[in-house]
């Protein structure tokens, strides 16, 4: 079978996105203060002139006209004329991804929002990973009663319509970022615990584990050398896909206005804002939507790639 590069492509995209979100705002030139009267809803790639006046105002406009003794700064409703003597500094700035209806730089919001989306999804996935693996291991190794109780609990929790629960909790409690992480993590670990339990049970009866036990390996050694390496693949595949689900769940809640408080930019929230001015600013919903899609697809590629590796190794 042809070796596919899914894992590499997915991982490279994920790393690039993460680095861009966390290091990007430090590298790109800082955008000027938002100027809703002159610089709202500018298309991607628009270059503006930033004029700082002596009274501390920052005027940002794509249309600036220098006259003899004054400068005319074009606005959405009316132009402003400022005497040259009043101007402290002038520089140019390019909005690579345009501005929103409050004149804010979309690129900066996107990167900051990406930090939040990535951190929320990653922390929730970590919680789900800890509970899921712990519960699965306990069920597989803790004896019949613990297994029965844990697995019936998992069945019961799976009977919950999860999005219902998320929406209810989010609407009723208006959680902050930390609470949102907890809710997302606590509602997403059930599948993983089933997976871990099943894997351990099927590994237990495999010849190489029996051989290791017969050879007198200590349980710790068997776990370290045999169980954990064999669990790592399926668990990491599941976690990659789960991360994608969590990114989408967070984005969906933010889109419905129920996730992260709206004063912080998130990708889902930006799409929701963009929907309101779809005709005037197509890029406002498109850009963060593509960002979410890129992130989720890169995670799906990683999951697929891991699965392919496992399938090849299993032959």
């Amino acid at each position, binding site marked *: 079978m042809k070796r596919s590069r899914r894992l590499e492509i997915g991982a490279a995209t994920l790393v690039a996105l993460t680095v861009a979100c966390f290091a990007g705002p430090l590298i790109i030139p800082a955008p000027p203060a938002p100027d809703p009267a002159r610089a709202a809803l500018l298309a991607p790639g628009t270059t503006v002139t930033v004029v700082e006046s002596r009274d501390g105002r920052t005027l940002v406009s794509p249309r600036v006209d220098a006259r003899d003794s004054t400068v005319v700064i074009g606005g959405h409703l009316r132009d402003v004329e400022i005497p040259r003597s009043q101007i402290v500094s002038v520089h140019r700035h390019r909005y690579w991804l345009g501005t929103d209806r409050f004149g804010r730089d979309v690129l900066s919001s996107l990167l900051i929002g990406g930090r939040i989306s990535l951190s929320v999804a990653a922390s929730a996935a970590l919680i789900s990973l800890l509970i899921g693996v712990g519960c699965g291991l306990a069920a597989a190794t803790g004896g019949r009663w613990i297994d029965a109780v844990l697995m019936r609990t998992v069945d019961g929790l799976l009977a*919950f319509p999860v*999005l219902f629960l998320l929406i*209810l909790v989010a609407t*009723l409690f208006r959680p902050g970022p930390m609470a949102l992480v907890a809710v997302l993590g606590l509602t997403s670990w059930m599948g993983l615990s089933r997976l871990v339990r099943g894997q351990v049970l099927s590994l237990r009866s495999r010849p190489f584990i029996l051989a290791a036990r017969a050879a007198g390996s200590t349980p710790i050694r068997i776990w370290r050398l045999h169980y954990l390496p064999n669990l790592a693949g399926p668990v990491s595949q599941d976690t990659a896909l789960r991360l994608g689900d969590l990114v989408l769940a967070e984005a969906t809640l933010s889109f*419905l206005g129920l996730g992260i408080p709206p004063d912080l930019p998130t990708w889902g929230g930006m799409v929701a804002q963009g*929907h309101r001015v779809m005709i005037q600013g197509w890029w406002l*919903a498109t850009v963060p939507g593509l960002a979410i899609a890129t992130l989720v697809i890169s995670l799906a590629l990683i999951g697929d790639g891991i699965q392919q590796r496992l399938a090849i190794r299993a032959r």
Partner: protein
Amino acid sequence: MARLILRRLVWLVPMVWLVATLTFIVVVAAPGSYADTVDHPGLGADQREALRARYGLDQPILRQYLSWLGAVATGDLGTSFVFKEPVAALLMRALPPTLLLGGAALFLDLLLGIAVAVAAARRPHGWFDRISTVVALGIAGLPSFWVAGLVVLVFALLLGWFPASHMTSVGAADLSPPGRVADLLHHLALPALCLGLVGAAGTARYLRSTLLEVRGERFVLAARARGVSDRRVLVRHTLRPALLPLVTLFGLSLPFLVSGSVVIETVFAWPGVGLALLQAAHARDVPVIMGITVVGAVAVLLGSLIADVLYAVVDPRVRHEVR
């Protein structure tokens, strides 16, 4: 088999009770209540107190819970705080649009998904397979609300081919019956497409890999060796066993059919269960929240039961195991 179904049906009751109780705890543990969400400038503290008393919100939580549970046990889901009408009537009004939308989406999902998967599996790693794999991966990764927004922008706002929201046009009641059906389908097209497309991407990916798996089976090789035609090998020997797991999809999509897609219903202002839940949650309309949760939980549990039973019906190997 019958005993198994009966036992699972009996189990349904405590499970639904558990879900309902947990939901009740979540709802009453939240700060504030319906009385605080009513927005009216003339509403003073004593009027809010009167509101609380009127809807029983001043009672101890345990009593509220027990009286709700008692009513549900006799088949009474209560009365909506906001709409002042029985929750059952409200659900009866919200369920048909949701079922219609979900059914249409499921139809599109299977139609597109099976067609694409069969075409892709004909020549694995051929051009169609490559393109469809990438497209399916892309669609599955797109947030549904974003797809919905894009579809509205292009097909409703820019091209104007379809209405952007709601289930009927203004004045649709005056149309002739065929005209009303056409109007409904016209409104149904975009939301059903959005829901169905995302589902189809998943179905196609899943079915493609199952098809390739089945193609490698020895009974397919044996059929080829006997000189069975390609078409017959595909339909009878490959597609049939590959579609088996898909049968469970019907059962597993039942909760989705009943609870509706909150997102799609919100974007398209589709008057279904999902939108009703969102509105009820915002207004702290406890009886409606609880009613929808109970119906949703019953749907999830019944759905997984139906999935298991259907699977046993179509796959004799499972049937023998179940016994």
